[in-house]
């Protein structure tokens, strides 16, 4: 490709981002790099980033909240596929508000009634299904975090970010980590479900950041998460080499390796600098050679796409301004005359 060529949208893969993004803000970096990142549940354009983040928008390709646990992801995908909901997915918190047990964080103040919560869950599952059907690539960030298992039906819920038992008051949920066999069984199920939904989907697995709640200074406390993370690292390599349409994306290795060494990633906060984020986006969008060797030079495809999007954005802004100008002229007459006439009497 020469520098003058602009790739068509058909040449760009449609990317879905799911799992546990933590503080990486990978969605932001991918969009900034010009990736065709699917947003199946977009916030209104005018919503502030702060408000959107508070309600779980713009972070992933659907409003799932961070779900880095394979068992929980599998349960969610089962619901996407069948439309069935487990018996106790509606949690009542100590504040009296109801919460979707699979994404307790996305409506931070809860929902007043079960009918609305069910309406939202069904719509969310439909949106998630569309995202997965429309995507060419799925970047799935899986982390070492445990899940909350309902002993009554073995449903695995994400260990919600607040980690706050008051959100599911009175439920006897068990905080569990999975061993290698269980992780393998979960991913085999997940892989099958995804292949059924979208046979052409390329699954790009990555280790997601370990949530700070899992990382206590006390080694014995964080051991289960570390063990699961270690198992996942080994298994992901195995799955990438043995399962069709599965590859491995070393996002976490680059964060904790090169980016940490150059001060572009902070292990304490789990955040990357804008430059670090751009490097991660290039890793996700670039060629395998770029991934392996050179994080500092931009992949040409990404740059051209970004320029194309910037040009489109500028053209849209110009058209908007032109339209506003036309409207303003006629509005000016109406509004001014209203006042002049009323106050000339």
């Amino acid at each position, binding site marked *: 490709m020469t520098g003058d060529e602009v790739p068509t949208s058909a040449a760009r893969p449609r990317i879905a981002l799911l799992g546990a993004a933590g503080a990486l803000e990978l969605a932001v970096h991918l969009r900034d790099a010009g990736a065709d990142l699917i947003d199946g*549940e977009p916030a*209104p354009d005018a919503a502030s980033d702060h408000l959107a983040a508070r309600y779980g928008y713009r972070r992933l390709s659907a409003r799932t909240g961070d779900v880095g646990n394979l068992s929980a992801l599998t349960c969610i995908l089962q619901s996407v596929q069948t439309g069935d909901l487990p018996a106790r997915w509606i949690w009542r918190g100590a504040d009296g508000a109801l919460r979707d047990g699979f994404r307790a964080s996305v*409506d931070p103040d809860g929902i007043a009634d079960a009918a609305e919560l069910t309406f939202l869950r069904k719509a969310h599952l439909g949106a998630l299904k569309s995202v997965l059907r429309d995507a060419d690539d799925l970047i799935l960030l899986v982390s070492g975090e445990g899940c909350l298992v309902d002993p009554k039906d073995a449903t695995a819920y994400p260990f919600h970010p607040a980690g706050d038992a008051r959100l599911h008051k009175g439920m006897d949920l068990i905080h569990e980590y999975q061993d290698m066999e269980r992780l393998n069984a979960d991913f085999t199920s997940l892989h099958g479900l995804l292949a059924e939904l979208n046979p052409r989907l390329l699954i790009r697995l990555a280790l997601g950041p370990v949530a700070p709640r899992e990382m206590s200074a006390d080694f014995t406390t964080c051991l289960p998460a570390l063990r699961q993370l270690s198992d996942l690292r080994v298994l992901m390599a195995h799955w990438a080499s043995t399962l069709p349409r599965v590859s491995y994306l070393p996002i976490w290795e680059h964060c904790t390796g090169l980016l940490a060494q150059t001060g572009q990633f902070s292990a304490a906060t789990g955040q990357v600098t804008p430059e670090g984020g751009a490097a991660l986006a290039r890793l996700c969008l670039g060629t395998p050679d770029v991934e392996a060797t050179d994080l500092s030079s931009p992949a040409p495809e990404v740059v051209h796409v970004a320029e194309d999007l910037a040009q489109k954005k500028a053209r849209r802004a110009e058209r908007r301004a032109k339209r506003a100008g036309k*409207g303003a002229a006629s509005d000016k007459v*109406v509004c001014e005359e209203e006042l002049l006439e*009323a106050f000339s*009497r």
Partner: protein
Amino acid sequence: MTYRLCVIGNSHVAAFKLGWDQLAAAGSPVTKAVALTFFGAPRDGLKNIAAENGKLVATVESVREHFERMSDGQSEIDPTAYDGILLVGLGVSMKRTLRLYRTHRWFGVQQGEGRVVTSRAFAQAFLAERYAGTRLAQVARMLSGLTEKPVYATPEPYWSPLMPDHVGKKGDFGWAKAAAAGDGDEIARMFAASVSDGIGGHATMIWQPALTIEQGIVTRSIYNKGASKFISGDGEESDAAHMNADYGAAWWAEAGQVFSASTARHPTARRRAGKRVS
């Protein structure tokens, strides 16, 4: 004792002035109990004001001229000279709620298969954020830094169903379609809740009188008749946004009781006056 009310707004103030004149001509008691002083500027002209020495002053000549014309010669607003302040319109319009309704759907809304579903809580929080960014909210915040006097606010009237030819074309915010879908009441509820959240901390809302509304979000056409284009009725019938003297009169007849000498004196006045006018 006469209640001195300062009315500040944009072009929607016109209907309030004409309605007041109509009531005064008919000898309505409310016009004897309350004395009005108007200030305003068309469109978003009040972006050109600033707080200086305890007063709101125009920062451009055109707005100063409007102030003088509307207030019989006063070029600045001194909040201490009044018992209360009423803000009219200034960007607080149902149009913002309708814009969200066109792209998103929340529980309780009938229409909108295929639109992005969001919780009522998010819809309300998003709209509150939008209404908190309006000129009305900005002026209310400026006033709350200048005076302890009660600040009231009323939104721009809902559009009238004047424009059947505009449905689906430029300038159609979807009033008719939403009303026809039976979503008017839910949209109106969302509008009221989010405006209260976005502005309620700085002003007490007084809502459009129920008798002027049909289908939840539409102003009855009798309150728009003759207001189109120019208030006298000249020009084409193409302005569904501005209301006539009858609308202003209906508003004052219903809400005028809020402004009495007693509410000016009692600290609980704001809370009592905050009930929905119906």
